[in-house]
């Protein structure tokens, strides 16, 4: 008998607009995510993967169905579900350390943090600075940092209050390939240390397989789950695994699913047909 899932989605539906112009972003979606698992969501644009993540984070509301996280119904954003965005989420007027300690600043402002908590918080902040390789940038401001460094700060800030669930919305989407690879190994390291439950949205299939224990493929129009793929790679991932036959086979499968569901395949067939007609 399996434990209560960390995140449970039941018949989740999201409809934008009303009447004639209404579009179904998510249709009757069920999904269970187990505690301390790393799940990646991929799919063609418009499949609702980011919307789904935002609903779990409480930043968007479903128009139907129910969302549970950490055993409670989700009714809004909360400290138990940290979110890392693609970019522009850092506070540019605060230094790196101050950004990371923001969740603790809130407590201090309310006056409900004891001196032991303050001590623990500064210890935690230092640990995160070191873990993320930010120690030398502790007193810098976000606009002095590269995109990769800024995302490290965003991740550290999200981890600060020890959230049981970490939601990541294409966090490395704006970074170059080399920086992304470094960030992948970093986030896997963090996952092993913190044992939080991570839900990671991306449009990059390779990233989804490399990071995830399970890859959820979503399909657009209407947004829904197409298929779920268990990643049969050793728990400790290394970059050269990307060249293994298992990895490549899985990548082919998933890319195939995405092409099919996004109608790209039929578009391609149509193009071929048209060009054949033109040549006759």
């Amino acid at each position, binding site marked *: 008998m399996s434990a209560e899932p960390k995140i449970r989605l039941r018949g989740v539906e999201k409809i934008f607009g009303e009447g004639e112009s209404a579009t179904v972003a998510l249709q009757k979606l069920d999904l269970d995510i187990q505690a301390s698992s790393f799940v990646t969501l991929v799919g063609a644009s418009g499949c609702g993967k980011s919307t789904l993540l935002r609903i779990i*984070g*409480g*930043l968007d509301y479903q128009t139907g169905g129910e969302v549970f996280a950490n055993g409670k119904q989700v009714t*809004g*954003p*909360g*400290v138990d*579900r*940290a*979110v890392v*965005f*693609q*970019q*522009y*989420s*850092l*506070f*540019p*007027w605060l230094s790196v350390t101050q950004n990371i300690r*923001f*969740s603790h*600043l*809130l407590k201090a*402002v309310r006056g409900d943090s004891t001196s032991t908590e303050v001590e623990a918080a500064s210890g935690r902040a230092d640990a995160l600075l070191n873990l993320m390789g930010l120690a030398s940038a502790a007193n*810098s*401001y976000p*606009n*002095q940092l590269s995109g990769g460094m800024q995302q490290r700060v*965003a991740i550290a*800030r*999200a981890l*600060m*209050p020890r959230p049981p669930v970490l939601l990541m919305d294409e966090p490395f989407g704006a970074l170059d390939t080399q920086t992304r690879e470094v960030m992948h190994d970093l986030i896997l390291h963090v996952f092993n240390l913190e044992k939080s439950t991570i839900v990671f949205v991306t449009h990059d299939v390779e990233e989804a397989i490399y990071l995830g224990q399970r890859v959820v493929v979503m399909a657009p129009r209407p947004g829904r789950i197409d298929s779920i793929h268990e990643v049969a790679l050793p728990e400790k991932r290394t970059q050269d695994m990307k060249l293994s036959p298992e990895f490549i086979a899985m990548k082919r499968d998933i890319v195939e699913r995405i092409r099919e569901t996004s109608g790209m395949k039929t578009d391609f067939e149509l193009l071929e047909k048209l060009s054949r007609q033109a040549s006759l």
Partner: protein
Amino acid sequence: MGQRQYWMLAAAGLLIPFASWWLLASSEVIPKVFMPGPQDVWMRALSWLYEDGLAADALISITRVFVGWGLSLLIALPLGLMIGTYRPVQALLEPLTDFIRYMPAVAFIPLVMLWIGIDEPSKIAIIFIGTFFQMVLMMAEDVRRVPAAQIESAQTLGASRSEIVNLVLLPSAKPALLDTMRVTMGWAWTYLVVAELVAANSGLGYSILKAQRFLQTDKIFAGIIIIGLITDQLFRLVHRRAFPWMYRKS
């Protein structure tokens, strides 16, 4: 573009118009009465300062501007913040404000004079009318431009509504808000001059008008330049002091 080139171009952008003015004035193609040279304006500014009560004129004008503009700021800031953050308040107030902002403030002068006379309050009222409606909408826009990711990050880190306003929206929008303050301060000076041209017996605007009657073109020049300098320099200073993080690019 290098730092050096930037400063050279910036210097050229200031020096070329100045030199042209100086050359044009000293060539005397235009009679000196209409086009005084820099040295005339400088001498006039000095004599105005030492013999003609420049300090008093500037002080009364600055006071009027600051009271009128400050009053507008006092109401516009919280209102703009509310319009920018709460949809219901936006729906309630924005259409009317948007409509009023395009009414020419200067056209209110006769009405203001009928209602509150020609004393100090009328000048302040004109500055207020001229700046307030613009300021509210611009500040609402400044607040609205704060990236959603900043606000949502704060929410997921446990910030309440009021904490988001105080700890995220205000500090994040501060540079833009200060810019709005600087721009509207420029308008406040415009309306001050208008108000002083219409009904006043003191102030920089009034002195400019009086200088026109005596054909003291150099004094008009001096007055205009002084007004420009006061506003621009003051806000540049405040901006650099208030936002060191914006100027600390590596």
